[in-house]
């Protein structure tokens, strides 16, 4: 789901598990996308730390 909501931030590996594509701090321009992914995760597995 995160890979659909924020394809710039999340992708998936060869078995479909989510992976974070961004290294280090999240660039400001991707913050909205990352928040969208956070708000769409049924598992509440995404946490954005300031």
């Amino acid at each position: 789901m995160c890979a659909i909501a924020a394809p710039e931030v999340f992708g998936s590996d060869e078995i479909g598990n989510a992976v974070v594509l961004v290294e280090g701090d999240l660039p400001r321009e991707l913050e909205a996308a990352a928040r969208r992914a956070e708000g769409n995760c049924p598992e509440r597995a995404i946490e954005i730390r300031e």
Partner: protein
Amino acid sequence: MGMRNASLDEILNHYDIFDDDFVSDPFPLLDQIRESGCPIAHSDQNGGSWMPTRHAHIVAMAQTPEIFTSREVGVIELSPESREGPYGGVRVPPIDSDPPEHHGHRRAILPTFAPQAVAKYESITRDLCNRLIDGFIDNGTADAASDYAQRIPVRVISMILGVPFEMEDDFVDWVRGVLETGLIDREVGLQSRMKIITFFMQQIEDRRANPRDDDLISDLLRLEIDGQPVDDIFVLGACNLMLIAGIDTTWSAIGSSLWHLAHRADHRHQLRDRPDIWPTAVEELLRVYAPVTMARIVAHDTEFEGCPMHAGDRILMAFPAANRDPRVFESPDQVLLDRENNRHVAFGAGIHRCAGSNLARLELRVALQVWMERIPEFELIDPADVTWKGGQVRGPRRCMVRF
């Protein structure tokens, strides 16, 4: 029969998921349970079950597989004949696998359903949707359920398995025999199950003699889990899974979505004018019409949110109820095709979250997009004539529209 007018006490203690009212419109009943003082109801019907209805409870249970096991996932008890017969070991891995076996079973099928892997089915799905519409567009009417929705996932699954499309009517019969009729008529359930097993035993024989490069059955026969080749019972189970999990689930989602669009001109126009909302629209339709309810079996006596649960108790994971929980979703009963935050659990949660969700999403999106391109305006001929089936998987089985 007739739960619509039942008292709250009756609903909380005697709900019947096969009741006609519950099947045709479960949401008022689910809302009553969720917003009562007893959001985890317990019914003595259909062999007895608990039914959590709040999003937080369902997710918590799904994330605790050591207590809420998947040794059975049917909404009513498996018949002893299907559990103990000569092929009693044929299950639906990894849906009904528990740890520690679960991980290997799930790992075995995940590559087939990864986003990159399912992308190759998009153009084929589009073609087959167009061909189905070619078959009825000149009539001016069609059954959106049986002429269209029902025929899409079964053909995609046939392609993945490497079996001919001519099996489509048999597959649909067998799957409905297991998941619909068979839940009530055990004899039909058992016969349908045996037809599936017999068919795939022949397919396995055939692939063993003539292995192919590009079908799932051949891939499964080459598979090793923890360095050991898998046995035929596992391969039969995985093939069984493709039919049981891959056909009437997605077809129900497509059918419910078309039923929705048939009576919501505003949403048809919104999709036409703003094609950029397709991704959120698909998620929203999955949220409000989540077709699937799965069960869990309690491993040992425990208390959950004040409810005394006993080893062997059945829990009905009412994903459709969770998806309309006002604690998680603003205006839960409104369908907002551009909904931004949507933590729906149409695919479940935890280690058993649907392994085929990427394929299901693709099929649902393409089926709806092709329909809307070809038939932008359509309506129900008679809303009262739409028939629904439910229990384990809910969706329209007859949905006549004109255009």
